[in-house]
């Protein structure tokens, strides 16, 4: 078990060079909104098939990072953005990354199946074909028998699974999940985490996963990125070499607790920074 602690980048930052070409590489990424710097010199890479989780204090630019990788926002000029080994603009990523925002954003006028096939329809797949494909996947997402239900008839956990299914059906190598379980109660959340790992292991997609919850970040991830306070960059890159498949009780193992301690320390430091800077900003008035 290596607990790499910045400023000593340790073995983890060497890994991208040693490994084959990463699926996604971000280097020296900046993003400013008027006077506000959201990201500053962010560097990160995600290897094929990897499950990378991102934690950080609130307002640290996680969502900005995601919007860039989803292709919704361009980073400032000068940053490096490489996808599948090729340098590209953020806009080139539109339609190439399957993105799941925080809220489920299901369309209330579409039933479960038709919500799930939204991305396939946009791609131009005939409806019948897309529906047949979705129907086969329903049991795995715990939605068998619910295909004709409308979102307002579903529980929060089920809505989230429909949204995840929509993301999965949009078959792209990289999946971006932005706090998908943030709004769920603790029990549902734990079940959804285990279930997501099962599905991930079966389909072997690459996942970049934002969360507020350190336990969730460790439990799910191969690697955890801790972000600094705004302007955001990667403060700590922590490999999680807990064995897979991970059992729920792993969260009480000494290795898990040690990892959690390391990560919490790093986050704590950054939270204090952003807290103090927000006080400092208020003072002049």
């Amino acid at each position, binding site marked *: 078990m290596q607990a790499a602690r910045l400023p000593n980048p340790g073995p983890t930052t060497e890994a991208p060079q040693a490994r084959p070409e990463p699926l996604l590489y971000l280097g020296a990424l900046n993003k400013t909104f008027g006077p506000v710097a959201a990201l500053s010199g962010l560097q990160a890479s995600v290897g094929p098939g990897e499950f990378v989780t991102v934690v950080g204090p609130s307002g640290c630019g996680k969502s900005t990072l995601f919007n860039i990788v989803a292709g919704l926002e361009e980073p400032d000029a000068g940053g490096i953005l490489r996808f599948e080994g090729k340098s590209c603009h953020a806009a080139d990523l*539109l*339609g190439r990354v399957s993105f799941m925002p925080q809220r489920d954003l299901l369309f209330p006028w579409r039933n479960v199946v038709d919500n799930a096939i939204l991305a396939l329809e*946009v791609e131009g797949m005939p409806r019948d074909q897309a529906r047949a494909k979705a129907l086969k996947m329903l049991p795995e997402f715990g939605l068998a028998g619910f295909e004709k239900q*409308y979102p307002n008839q579903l529980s929060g956990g089920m809505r989230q699974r429909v949204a995840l299914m929509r993301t999965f059906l949009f078959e792209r190598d990289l999946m971006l999940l932005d706090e998908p379980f943030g709004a769920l109660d603790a029990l549902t959340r734990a079940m959804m985490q285990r279930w997501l790992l099962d599905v991930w292991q079966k389909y072997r997609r690459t996942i970049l996963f934002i969360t507020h919850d350190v336990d969730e970040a460790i439990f799910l991830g191969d690697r955890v990125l801790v972000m600094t306070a705004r302007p955001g960059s990667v403060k700590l890159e922590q490999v999680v070499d807990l064995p897979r498949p991970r059992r729920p009780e792993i969260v009480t193992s000494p290795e898990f607790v040690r990892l959690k301690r390391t990560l919490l320390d790093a986050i704590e430091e950054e939270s204090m920074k952003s807290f103090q800077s927000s006080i400092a900003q208020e003072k002049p008035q």
Partner: protein
Amino acid sequence: MSRALASPSLAVQRGILGAFILVACWEGAARGLHLPAYVLPAVSDILAGLWSKRATLTDAAGYTLLEALVGYGLGCLIGIGLAVAIALVPALRTAILPLATAINSVPVVGYSPLILLWFGIGVSSKIVMVAMAVSFTILLSMLAGLDRVDRRAIDLMRSFGASRFGVLWRLRLPTALPLLLAGMRVSTVRSVIVAIVTEMLGAHGGLGWVIYQAVLQIDFVQVWAAIFVASAASLAFFGLIGFLERKILFWT
């Protein structure tokens, strides 16, 4: 309100009760106070007049409804078309909206002399008037509906690679439907009113024309009979669109 919606039968009962009380008071006042017909004829007299003139009134109602429906359909198409054009080409907003607002800042009936001059006193002038009145309401409600879309839902569609048209078709149009249909429901009554008022200013037929003729002949029972028919036609139209609204918007 919500309780009445929860049990429609109760709402219907109350509505019928209210109407019954109104009719009873009306009948009582007209008979008891011996009001002359030009002030307020008794409901029973109006219903009798309605029955005796049923052929004329049915023809007139058909005439007016035709104008109102065609004008309404045209107005909806124009309003929806303009709103969609603005949604697809945002620059059009500043070109279309001020002009449409300027035209509609005058009560639409103010244009009727001009419209009658340009389109004659036949059916087409009424259709144009109704279309004008309806299209503006529809344009505004459709625009409000299209603008109500969740920014994050648009981002989601874009991340799936959807074009502007794809976002419009799969997301913005369905999102706009509740407000569009509410606007369409309100416009039903407006379309009948505008058709009737324009007929009163010059027409070959229709309920407005019947009212105008009856006033000239000092036949106030017939005026009221025509008003009853017009009101029933409006209510039926309103009810029909309201019914379609509930059928279409099953998710709200």
